[in-house]
């Protein structure tokens, strides 16, 4: 059997009229008619992506301004030129991924899970090249402080993202949560890179990048919870 024959069978089958109960359609039109009003279409995707990048940058800068720019002051030019572009690029990509997750039927350039893995691996590689001091002091204590600080700044980023995108519709809430968590975690790490003067390799490799993982996992988990707890209609608005 050839593809053409299968096509013919499918085409013939598809041509058979498929009727829908007219009363059902009247009911749907009636329900929609009751709340019919003009709506403002969402801004262009580029505007939303720009807004998310700005929110992330603002939260990271505000956090560093409050706690001190000790990290960036301690970095040499090479370290600054390597670390911050390596954060800005995934922030932009995560913003684009999050926006596309909240608009049904958008072309998906990268999946949030692939983005999370790539961003983490890229940061790990850059940190491993730049920071060579493998001696550690108070590894756990210092690390937990940085993790908590990073998460503390990821939360307002996530909240700001939600405010900007709250009128969207996530067809896959878990992926949307993953993208939102990744973006928020990246903002948290940016704040840490601006602020944290601890350049021990293991500290940066383990605890700074953990902020992204914890934040992404939290985002996916929360959105999963919302989806499960929602009754009809069944998805959270972003």
């Amino acid at each position, binding site marked *: 059997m050839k*593809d053409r024959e299968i096509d013919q069978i499918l085409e013939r089958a598809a041509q058979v009229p498929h009727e829908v109960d007219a009363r059902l359609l009247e009911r749907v039109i009636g329900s929609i008619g009751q709340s019919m009003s003009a709506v403002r279409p969402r801004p262009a995707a580029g505007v939303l992506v720009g807004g998310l990048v700005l929110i992330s940058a603002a939260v990271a800068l505000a956090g560093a301004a409050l706690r001190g720019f000790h990290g960036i002051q301690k970095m040499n030019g090479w370290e600054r030129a390597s670390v911050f572009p390596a954060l800005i690029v995934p922030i932009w990509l995560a913003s684009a991924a999050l926006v596309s997750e909240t608009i049904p039927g958008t072309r998906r350039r990268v999946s949030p899970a692939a983005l999370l893995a790539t961003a983490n691996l890229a940061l790990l590689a850059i940190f491993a090249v730049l920071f060579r001091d493998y001696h550690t002091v108070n590894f756990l204590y210092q690390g937990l402080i940085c993790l908590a600080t990073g998460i503390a700044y990821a939360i307002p980023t996530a909240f700001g993202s939600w405010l900007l995108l709250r009128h969207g*519709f996530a067809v896959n809430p878990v992926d949307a949560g993953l993208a939102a968590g990744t973006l928020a975690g990246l903002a948290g790490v940016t704040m840490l890179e601006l602020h944290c003067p601890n350049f021990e390799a293991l500290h940066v490799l383990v605890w700074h990048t953990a902020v992204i993982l914890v934040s992404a996992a939290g985002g996916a988990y929360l959105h999963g919870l919302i989806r499960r707890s929602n009754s009809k209609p069944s998805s959270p608005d972003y």
Partner: protein
Amino acid sequence: MHPDSDLQILMELYQEGDLAAATTLIHRLSPQLHRFFVVQLASRAEADDLLQETWLRIHKARNTYRSGEPVLPWLYAIARHIRVDHYRKERRTGARHRRLEDAPELAARPPEPSGDTPELAAILALLPDSQREVLEMMKVAGMSLEEVARATSSSVGSVKQKAHRAYENLRKRLSGVEFVKRHSGGGS
């Protein structure tokens, strides 16, 4: 004029609060959406519920449609979400479990033609969910590979692969079935 252009104009009018445009959209797209649910092994009653829920959801999310973008991927992405969510709820309540027990029997059964034309749902029932969905969107809704990729949040390559596997599966399953001879128009 691209067949989707009309739909784009209707969607824009719908966003402006035009009930007549919404009514036209509902009448025009409901049969294919309903068929989309039936083909995914839903009963007619379930498909009715899913269709109703889909339109209510579309109404709530109509601001997310972007002018100039194809309508069908946007619409099917929402319909697909409603269907997945419905199955998830069903599975939780146990009803899905019962139906899954029946599913292998249904999938193993060769399609039975009714009259001169085989039932689309019966043909596509031979395929796994993801392949069935892709083929339904391409062959019934008339969507392009790119549009199916958008509707299913996947890549064009992945859609191509699923369509290719669906054809392979159908070729294997339909070969030797009597209705092939009757409905292929005798072409070789």
